[in-house]
């Protein structure tokens, strides 16, 4: 009798245990969804509402703004010829840039994977360097090199007695700089596709009588077409969201793309926040369509050509031509890394940027530390660095922890609602940084005493913006931990949280640390979303750089660019060291 009662009480306890567990998981999923809604859904909805009203949330108050909703506002914006022009410019610049990026990326992946070009390992490592340069810094460097009147390149041409002049303050300049800086995106996709391709597919073509050239175009390229297309789309998507390069190169001739136009709208007085929201939505829709297309290409026609045995990658003997390919590699490096770095160094250390002739360029009396002294005399400089680091740390810690929770919930549990968590947390992939900025602006500017004007609004925007990449990076780090290792801990009597603390976290810690460092780096170099969210108290490095540039002092701009680049270089080096190379691809993904 006694035993039966015991068993019955055990059964009831079991049932209440189950109910309690259901309650806990329900609370957990609810909490995650609430956080995600707060971070992603609410700002996007506010952005949509902003696009549909015609009032200013600061002047008129949020409540009044929301009572003026009408599709007509959005249609007015669409009909605005300036918007149409910005959209057209964007498509031309990104389209042209993508074409150049594909040509360069494809050529380099072929050189590195398929030929016996000397030092190709070095070329491969160097050709992804542009990924690490913040777009604004790249833009500044190319402005110093390629401005039509005072540009270093034109000074050189003048010295050589040539009448040839370059003008990068133009659509051509924009296309050119976009193309050379975003070629690595194409390279990363196509080189791995080439490397994973069974070489006998090409050998079969050669045996069949095709020349090396016709093999390339009838077999090799068609086979890696999915990789080419998705690399192409990705570079297009990244270019769409870039602010720094068009801001520098387009401004002098009033050449607007969507990103620069959005920022201009919010800088008008009074600021046209609703027009900005509407244009941001256009940008978001275009990006979203392209992201969708890219996902389709990646998941669709993929030719698995792996034969199951390890193969030596084919290496085409170029004979003496290999020195030509080597020279092209070095030329690219020169154009993309060496020249811009030299330009920044010259501008940063030179007292006056006016360079009469080449002799004056090498005149050491013209150089000094003036600009560095003057930027560090400005109290804003140290404050912006301090702010950037503070935002970076908050973003890395909070964002890292949140991404871990999300990643674990999506990949390692079977709780209901994880599909929704997955979907919402990947949504920001399709939202350019600048649009995130505008959305957060709309979400918080009308709420007095709220987040607007604090460091936290920047951090939260960054967390939302980089969520998909952080979740992906973290997930790979613990997906490598075999499930059975966790199951073994459960069998030993550890609970879910105990298992995560004693098994998953220690094993995944290198990956988690790397992902957090990466997040830190991404946060301190982010410009697009900061633009709309900073106030004089929360000025961050990337925004201050833009400030210096718009202030017109090229020397200070270059000096601060160098400070930033060195800081970032150290940080990225550290991140790479922590993750042993895994972080690289992720800096790339977010531009």
């Amino acid at each position: 009798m006694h035993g039966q009662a015991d068993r019955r009480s055990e059964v009831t306890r079991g049932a209440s245990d189950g109910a309690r567990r259901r309650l806990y998981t329900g609370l957990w999923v609810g909490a995650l969804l609430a956080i995600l809604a707060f971070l992603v859904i609410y700002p996007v909805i506010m952005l949509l509402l902003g696009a549909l009203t015609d009032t200013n949330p600061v002047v008129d108050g949020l409540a009044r703004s929301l009572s003026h909703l009408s599709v007509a506002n959005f249609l007015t914006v669409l009909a605005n010829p300036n918007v149409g022009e910005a959209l057209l410019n964007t498509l031309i610049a990104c389209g042209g840039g993508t074409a150049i990026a594909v040509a360069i990326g494809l050529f380099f992946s072929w050189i590195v994977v398929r030929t016996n070009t000397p030092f190709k390992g070095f070329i491969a490592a160097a050709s992804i360097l542009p990924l690490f340069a913040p777009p604004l810094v790249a833009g500044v460097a190319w402005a110093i090199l390629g401005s039509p009147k005072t540009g270093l390149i034109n000074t050189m041409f003048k010295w050589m007695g040539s009448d040839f002049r370059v003008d990068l303050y133009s659509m051509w300049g924009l296309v050119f700089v976009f193309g050379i800086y975003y070629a690595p995106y194409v390279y990363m996709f196509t080189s791995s596709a080439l490397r994973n391709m069974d070489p006998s597919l090409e050998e079969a073509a050669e045996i069949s009588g095709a020349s090396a050239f016709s093999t390339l175009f009838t077999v090799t390229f068609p086979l890696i077409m999915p990789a080419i297309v998705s690399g192409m789309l990705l570079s297009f998507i990244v270019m769409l969201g870039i602010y720094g390069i068009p801001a520098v190169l387009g401004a002098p001739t009033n050449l607007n793309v969507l990103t620069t136009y959005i920022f201009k709208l919010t800088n008008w007085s009074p600021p046209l926040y609703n027009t900005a929201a509407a244009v941001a939505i256009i940008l978001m829709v275009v990006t979203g369509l392209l992201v969708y297309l890219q996902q389709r290409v990646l998941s669709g026609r993929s030719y698995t050509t792996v034969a199951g045995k390890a193969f030596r990658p084919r290496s085409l003997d170029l004979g003496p031509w290999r020195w030509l390919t080597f020279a092209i590699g070095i030329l690219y490096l020169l154009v993309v890394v060496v020249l811009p770095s030299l330009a920044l160094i010259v501008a940063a250390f030179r007292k006056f940027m006016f360079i009469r002739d080449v002799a004056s360029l090498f005149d050491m009396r013209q150089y000094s530390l003036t600009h560095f002294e003057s930027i560090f005399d400005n109290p804003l400089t140290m404050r912006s660095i301090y702010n950037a680091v503070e935002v970076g740390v908050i973003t890395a810690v909070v964002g890292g922890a949140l991404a871990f929770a999300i990643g674990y919930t999506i990949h390692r549990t079977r709780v209901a609602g994880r599909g929704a968590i997955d979907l919402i947390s990947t949504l920001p992939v399709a939202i350019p940084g600048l649009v995130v900025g505008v959305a957060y602006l709309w979400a918080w500017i009308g709420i007095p005493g709220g987040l607007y004007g604090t460091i936290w609004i920047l951090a939260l925007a960054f967390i939302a913006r980089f969520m998909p990449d952080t979740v992906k990076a973290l997930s790979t780090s613990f997906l490598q931990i075999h499930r059975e290792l966790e199951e073994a801990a459960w069998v030993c009597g550890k609970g879910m949280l105990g298992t995560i603390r004693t098994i998953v976290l220690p094993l995944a810690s290198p990956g988690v640390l790397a992902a957090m460092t990466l997040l830190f780096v991404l946060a301190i170099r982010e410009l697009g979303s900061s633009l709309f969210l900073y106030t004089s108290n929360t000025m961050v490095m990337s925004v201050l750089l833009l400030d210096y540039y718009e202030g017109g002092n090229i020397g200070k701009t270059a000096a601060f660019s160098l400070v930033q680049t060195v800081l970032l270089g150290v940080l990225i080096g550290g991140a790479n060291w922590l993750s042993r190379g895994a972080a690289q691809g992720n800096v790339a993904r977010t531009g």
Partner: protein
Amino acid sequence: MMATLEVTELRKQFAIGRPAIDGVSFSVPAGEIVVLLGPSGCGKTTTLRCVAGLEHPTGGEISISGKVVSSPERGVLVPPRSRDLGMVFQSYAVWPHMTVRQNVVYPLKHRNISRADAGRKVEEALALVGLSEYGDRPVVALSGGQMQRVALARSMVYRPQLLLLDEPLSNLDAKLRLRLRDDLRVILKQTGMTALYVTHDQAEAVVLGDRIGVMRDGKLLQMDSPDAIYNRPADLFVANFTGATNELAGTLVACNGRYGVVDFGDGRRGEVALFHALAPDEKVRVALRPENIAIGRPDGANTFSAKVLDRRYQGTQTAYGIELFGKRLEAIELGTAARHQVGVEAPVSLPRECLWAYRDRGPVSHE
């Protein structure tokens, strides 16, 4: 049209290590199928790839129908596309972005052949490999065996002088492999192709080859008809590789032409076959096939007493481990009945023409 392949003193030295091919010479007469057989890493695939022109030899000469296509000494190196070859790869190498017909017509597009002619040739080739109805399918929708048939059709559609096949069946599952192996021989013989075929599977080599060349460590050990390879292997390695896995050590005490007498120790002597001239008192190793050991049937002069150590029933045959001259040997007896008990002493007879004596060159590894 059909031509001979002539390979003379072929050498291939990669950047590091011993040469992958170390002085290989052989020829393939028109219309014959020659199989290169050997364990992985023996240089057979490298030899084939040198003939194809995909690998560049470092020495020796290759000529196809009298025309030298590769001779590093004379600076001759004809690119693969000008050698008029067909090749079938281990991984099929059919192009996944094309249909079956597009795959097969591809080589014809790089030759001066009219569209109508090309269409007819493609249909012929597809009919030959039994894929007439599959022309418009994308190749990715085919099974492994069908893909390999596409690869075969593609390599034969332009009737090349010489067909090269690089382990074409090794990625297929066992049952399909047997069927395609038999089909392949029929197709090759039907078209009168000259072919060089590389494999590590002796059964495949025996069925397909008019002649088999056994390779090891970059050297061609023996090139002969399948029958000769199986019944008169040139050395201990060939004997072992083709299935004579038992080995006995002894000393030759007398020889008389094709046969000799070997002392296996303790005065136990037996008659053996000699393929090479050996002198009395030489140390020898004697190779013996498991299926040539007859247990329980005292027959002829070479009858000894052995002990049955273990028995493994395998359905249509039974494998025994027996102890003979203090050494463990494998024996196989065909039939569905397992006749001998473990632990019994039984007479075993070893026919002298199945005991092949080779000079003892010290321990040899067979793997």
